[in-house]
């Protein structure tokens, strides 16, 4: 096959249709009955994968966000990055049917059938999964995918597409003249620079009723949820709170929005998704290809480097200096901070989450938090993809909903503050907590926080029962004394010696650090049998000397040992690293006295 006769980006449905026709053998003697597919892929995926990854079409696909939403075409290929916030179950749709000319058509990757269905007996019902996705909570600005897409992309494409239409007579394009009509509006919007001001919605609405343009007004500019429809993927692939990039066909079925029927019956009978997520608020994405995003995928355009030890050490040194400066020249705290930032849960044995290293900086007052807290927040924002801060005031505890809760009225999972994707960083500022009484919500919230830090699990409230969801959140706590509400693994008395602000790191340095944090975190790790013996002996000796040491302390040491050797780019624990752990613990204990 020469160049593909379809445009995967502007007209993905055309491509889907072509593969479908090919697959059922349209035009040839024997036509396969589409029910044979059972809704599974017939070769369209292959095509898109090839286009996206082999022909590096991925970077050309526009990313769906409130900005791009204004010019992205209905039924075009888009990317969306988000966290799966809720799962709305399965949806049945007419997957294939016979049209007037009694040839088979497919509805896969679209909401509407483009042709009238001839005989309803000639239909195949298939299913797809509905996922409600939201932008990654607490995502740092640098981690957002760059949308340097040329906004003029669409007209060019459109031309190309129209040319194609000529050859192809694609009835998929709804009404070409409408597009022409609507483009001045979008243009005007862009020129005005005030896209959401009052007069426009009217214009847009009229435009939207006649064209398939994505002219949707969003209340929250920064928060674009998306209803993703998943095809051809086993259920276990996509889990709650996972961060994914979905590539698929964008649809706005603005007509559905018209149906606002407050009949209770229809509400409870319709998928509540339609009622509570009107399509003009939540765009639909018919996912063709999806991939799970790791921390690495957030790094904008950095090449995948081999984590060479000397390189790693260099970056580590620089990052450590930076952290020390941020922490007011407190080297010990900076050491622990570095390890803390590298921690992640790598295994769970029963209830024990191994690999977590939550950090509690004590000796902070309200005043010092305002200095160092803000500084650290800034630092984390520039280093980590997802960060969040919890001001632990009495009022907050008594009112906030930390854990997600199911609302059966709307049949939606109401997000809680602690519904965070894997690897998020959470700062808890306990210095602002004053004495007072907690109400039942407050007690529940403290329980949730404690559960999170101890077991890295959050209990989701489904009213009739609770479901524990595993989390992997790095927790950093600021407090005056040791925090009892959020008991951390490591308690470090914070002793800054300098107040002056640190220098602002250059962009290259930041990039290198981000890369470092992301890479080192996922390094494999092992221990030699000799070293294991040494460690065991040390633990036994320590326990003989101090009976108060328990498995938690040992666990902490070993986590630190792992992190220290990882932080130096090593994959195997060495004696030196182990000595460093002991030294760090000694320094820490000295401070605690």
């Amino acid at each position, binding site marked *: 096959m020469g160049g593909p006769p379809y445009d995967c980006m502007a007209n993905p449905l055309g491509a889907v249709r072509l593969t479908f026709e090919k697959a059922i053998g349209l035009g040839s003697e024997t036509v396969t009955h589409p029910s044979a597919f059972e809704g599974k892929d017939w070769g369209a995926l292959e095509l898109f994968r090839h286009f996206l990854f082999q022909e590096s079409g991925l970077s050309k696909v526009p990313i769906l966000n409130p900005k791009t939403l204004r010019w992205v075409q209905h039924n075009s290929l888009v990317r969306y990055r988000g966290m799966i916030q809720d799962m709305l*179950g399965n949806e049945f749709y007419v997957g294939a049917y016979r049209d007037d000319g009694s040839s088979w058509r497919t509805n896969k990757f679209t909401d509407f059938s483009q042709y009238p269905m001839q005989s309803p007996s000639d239909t195949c019902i298939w299913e797809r999964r509905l996922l409600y996705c939201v932008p990654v909570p607490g995502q740092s600005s640098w981690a957002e995918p760059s949308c340097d897409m040329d906004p003029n992309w669409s007209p060019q494409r459109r031309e190309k597409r129209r040319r194609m239409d000529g050859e192809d007579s694609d009835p998929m394009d709804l009404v070409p003249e409408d597009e022409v009509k609507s483009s001045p509006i979008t243009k005007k919007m862009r020129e005005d620079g005030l896209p959401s001001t009052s007069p426009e919605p009217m214009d847009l609405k009229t435009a939207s009723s006649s064209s398939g343009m994505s002219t949707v007004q969003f209340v929250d500019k920064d928060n674009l949820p998306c209803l993703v429809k998943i095809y051809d993927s086993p259920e276990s692939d996509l889990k709650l709170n996972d961060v994914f990039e979905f590539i698929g066909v964008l649809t706005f079925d603005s007509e559905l929005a018209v149906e606002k029927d407050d*009949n209770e*019956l229809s509400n*409870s009978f319709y998928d509540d998704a339609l009622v509570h997520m009107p399509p003009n608020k939540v765009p639909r994405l018919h996912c063709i290809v999806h991939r799970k995003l790791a921390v690495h995928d957030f790094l904008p355009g950095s090449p995948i480097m081999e984590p060479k030890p000397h390189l790693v050490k260099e970056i580590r040194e620089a990052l450590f200096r930076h952290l020390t400066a941020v922490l007011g020249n407190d080297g010990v705290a900076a050491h622990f901070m570095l390890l803390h930032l590298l921690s992640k849960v790598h295994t769970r044995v029963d209830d024990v989450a*191994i690999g977590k290293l939550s950090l509690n900086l004590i000796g902070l007052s309200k005043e010092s938090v305002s200095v160092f807290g803000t500084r650290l927040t800034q630092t984390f924002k520039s280093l980590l993809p997802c960060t969040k801060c919890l001001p632990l005031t009495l009022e907050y505890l008594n009112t906030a909903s930390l854990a997600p809760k199911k609302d059966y009225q709307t049949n939606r999972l109401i997000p809680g503050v602690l519904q965070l994707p894997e690897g998020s960083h959470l700062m808890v500022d306990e210095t602002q907590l004053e004495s007072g009484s907690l109400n039942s919500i407050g007690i529940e919230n403290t329980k949730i926080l404690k559960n999170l830090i101890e077991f890295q699990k959050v209990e989701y409230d489904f009213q009739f*029962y609770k479901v524990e969801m595993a989390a992997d959140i790095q927790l950093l706590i600021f407090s005056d004394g040791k925090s009892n509400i959020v008991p951390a693994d490591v308690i470090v008395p914070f002793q800054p010696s300098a107040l002056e602000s640190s220098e602002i790191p250059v962009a290259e340095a930041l990039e290198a650090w981000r890369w470092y944090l992301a890479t080192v975190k996922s390094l494999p790790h092992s221990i030699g049998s000799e070293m294991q013996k040494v460690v065991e002996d040390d*633990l036994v000796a320590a326990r003989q000397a101090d009976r108060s040491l328990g*498995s938690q302390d040992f666990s902490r040491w070993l986590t630190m040992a792992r992190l220290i050797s990882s932080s130096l780019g090593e994959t195997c624990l060495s004696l030196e690293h182990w000595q460093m752990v002991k030294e760090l613990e000694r320094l820490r204990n000295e401070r605690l006295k």
Partner: protein
Amino acid sequence: MASDSSPANFNNGPSSPDDSFSSPIPNTSSPAHRRRRGRRQASTPSTAAATPPPNPSRFANSASTPTPSRSTKRGRRPATSPTPAAAATPSSTDDFPPPSSDGGDDMEEATPTFVWGTNISVQDVKNAIQMFIKHFRDPQELSNDIYGEGKYTRMIHRVLEVEGEWIDVDAHDVFNYDSDLYNKMMRYPLEVLAIFDIVLMDIVSLINPLFDKHVQVRIHNLKSSTSMRNLNPSDIEKMVSLKGMVIRCSSIIPEIREAVFRCIVCGYHSDPIVVDRGRITEPTSCLKQECMAKNSMTLVHNRCRFADKQIVRLQETPDEIPEGGTPHTVSLLMHDKLVDAGKPGDRVEVTGIYRAMSVRVGPTQRTVKSLFKTYIDCLHIKKNDKSRMTAEDPMEVDKGSQRVDDDVQFDEEKVEELKELSKQPDVYEKLTRSLAPNIWELDDVKKGLLCQLFGGNALVLPSGASFRGDINILLVGDPGTSKSQLLQYIHKLAPRGIYTSGRGSSAVGLTAYVAKDPETGETVLESGALVLSDRGICCIDEFDKMSDNARSMLHEVMEQQTVSIAKAGIIASLNARTSVLACANPSGSRYNPRLSVIDNIHLPPTLLSRFDLIYLILDKADEQTDRRLAKHIVSLHFEDTEIAEHDVIDLATLTAYVSYARKNIHPKLSDEAAEELTRGYVEMRKRGNFPGSSKKVITATPRQIESLIRLSEALARIRFSEWVEMRDVTEAFRLLEVAMQQSATDHSTGTIDMDLITTGVSASERMRRESVLSAARNIIMDKLQLGGPSVRLLELLEELKKQSSGGEIHLHDLRTAVATLASEGFVVLHGDSVKRI
């Protein structure tokens, strides 16, 4: 021949007042039809009712493809029809091809009628159903009553007597009688059920021609039930059975079935007009010949007929949710009697027909919407659960709000598996190993906990005296010895239980609380942790931190197993048949082996004696243990693969095992076991008498023998044995001894001393005190003159030390002794000086 005896004037319209979508009841029609209708209405609305569908498509052609044809007959039988059918659930009456006006009549001529697209003959199905109803006999009754009436014939008679409206048919019976019919029913429920109803009506009218209610069939107890998650398009139009939890019920929706209009000009009342495809056609003019007024007809509400319907949402139960998923939900459509059969929170098992319907097509919509909404047309609903407070069997209910345990319906396979497990000679060891496999060592503690989980037999004598079967356990130990983890684990495992911390619990929080309802002024009882864990295990962490007040009410709970409340207006005694598992820290941060248990934990001896087993979990400075800990933690961290737990029973099986045993095994004492118990007990008591020792040490109390019985019963249960055998008793003694040796060891003598627990002071301690006392008395007699000068205590101490050969005497010992003497009136104590009087 389908259905022909049944009413001729089937109405083929849906009964909903709102045509286009919103009333799901009539929408038992297949979705495809709806779509078609929508289109048609858009173009020529008036033809909708009149156009008969193409005849061949009257039945579902294939399971996955809904056909439009059914829709034409999905109307309910109107009440005016000869056979009253109004009360029919739509699923059973709808969609059956009735000989309705729209082309159904011709079926009378065509003799072999088939379910469309299949080779299932309607007549065959009808015959099969007739045979089933007439001839099916419960296998259990077969022997004695071979000529009697079949199970369902009898049932029909009973229904007629009580004027019931339905007959519950066990799908297992159908399967056993005619598996072919069962399969047809599963695959083509709409058709088969409709035939079933017709057969039933025929029979009913034979028995009592005047019976004017429509009797329906309700199928339940299918051979297999589907998980909500696995419903897929191929299940559409099939009969399915689901388990789940009701989370939301809509209000009851009255659905119009037939309407009566009145002419406002002449007052003429029209005949009832039956709903036709969800629509009532309002007469445009008065039907009375003399009047004929245009647009004069108004609806007479109170002469219309309505039926109830309700939409209920069912959600997956927690145990069906895979990791990283959220529960799925499905809508249920309930009619008539099924309305309000389940309340939010109920766990139900539902049998019904999985249906799909297309989403409403807006009138302005140009393109056809291709989505379906699915729901289950409910035929039968069975509540699985009694509410927690009324449940008799502890295993059938959830425990706490945390984990809802489904009532373990043991299927035979599972029971076999469990029995197999129980037959293994090392099942006791195996279960011990499987209990909290991550906490090692502490094997004896785990064995004790295992006994607690299984529990002994509660006994109520005819005289009214009752003996508890619950085993109470107290764990005392150093911090960091995984007591709390053990507690958490047991809490997780126990069929029902509450986990609470002594620090935060108040007496009312644990027992019960009387509150006044602010609105009605009624007093209501709110249960506390102990009452809530009735027939379960109440885990109390930080027992030592509990306030005395709260602790004192445990006395009643732990021996009498009730909680009594006397508050103004309310005097109540609530059952709290709970096992208490408590854990406490020693009063100092660490256990002080030189002090007695009482001194260590600061608990009243009265309460302590109520614990069957008191384990001291001490952190011994043992290098071997430390090394194991170190090894364990290192391997935890550095072997990324899960640590393989060899030969460990998983939690689910363990729970099932415990539940089954508690439910079904009630061991009794065998004679030899009873003898052994007596012998052992006597021996235990004897043990206090050391040969050549004058010290009297009580080693066992009657409470202990009760504990022993309970423990050996529990041990027999572990083996699924109905008899308590010698070995159980021996093990029970061993367990008690292990626990006692730790807790009741008199540290000065090394013997078991129950006094240590019941009074807090050991016998040897008492003897020592007495010797100090007598020594002090002697010295004072020797040294001090009556009324002479006083002596300082320290001097006395010196004197005492000189005299006593061994053993150290402390000042405070002397002081206590002198105080005793002073109380005897022998001396007076002024500050530090002693004066003889």
